[in-house]
């Protein structure tokens, strides 16, 4: 069965003094969980498209609601963050960037890349129009 897990578990958060590299690590998990939930929206959207025009129109009404639009906007930011932070994790897996100074530098790179990619997607593509519902 599943307990105990067959790997070292993550230590409980309270034992650490907060540091921004740690905040990034938590954000990676938080954005991952958020994107997991949003993957159900992705599947639901495909199912609606496959089910035909009426179902797709109903899905369209759901997706154009303010709350869902807000969720999708956050999901776009979470996508970029999780992508860049994921690349940082893959680099660690290959043995690169473990020094404290490089971990801090790569953290800053991840944040800058996320902000740039999020802004570029919002303002250089139809994303802003679709997410805000402006014509």
């Amino acid at each position: 069965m599943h307990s105990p897990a067959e790997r070292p578990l993550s230590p409980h958060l309270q034992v650490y003094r907060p540091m921004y590299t740690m905040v990034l690590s938590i954000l990676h998990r938080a954005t991952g969980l958020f994107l997991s939930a949003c993957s159900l929206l992705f599947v639901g959207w495909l199912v609606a498209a496959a089910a035909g025009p009426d179902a797709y129109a109903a899905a369209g009404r759901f997706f154009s609601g303010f709350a869902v639009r807000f969720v999708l906007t956050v999901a776009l930011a979470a996508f970029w963050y999780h992508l860049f932070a994921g690349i940082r994790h893959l680099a660690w897996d290959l043995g690169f960037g473990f020094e404290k100074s490089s971990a801090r530098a790569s953290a800053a790179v991840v944040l800058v890349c996320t902000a740039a990619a999020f802004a570029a997607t919002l303002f250089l593509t139809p994303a802003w129009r679709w997410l805000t519902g402006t014509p």
Partner: protein
Amino acid sequence: MNPRPGRATRHWRNQRLTSIALLPLGLWFLAALLRQPDLDYATVAAWLAKPLQALLALLLGIAILWHSGQGVQVVLEDYVGGRLRGFSIRLSQFIHAVAAAALAWAVYGLVTGGGA
């Protein structure tokens, strides 16, 4: 690489493999979605009726759900204790399996011409 890795090692390795697959697939989807002139039914159905596009959407969905299932399991292992741990992991696996079945049904319907 160890020719017969254990379950935890496979879990770790598959999480990395799905993350690598998600880099191009995720970027493809975002770019393809944003390049659509509109997101109405006719446009989206025509887009995903193309076999290659449907295949990419299927691969993306599989990679997302696989990676998501693994990631959620790791978080549950870390932060859910006692009896709830096993239950929550099985619940997550069930939701992911249902989503995967729905995904397969949807892509099949889209590629065979809508109105499945």
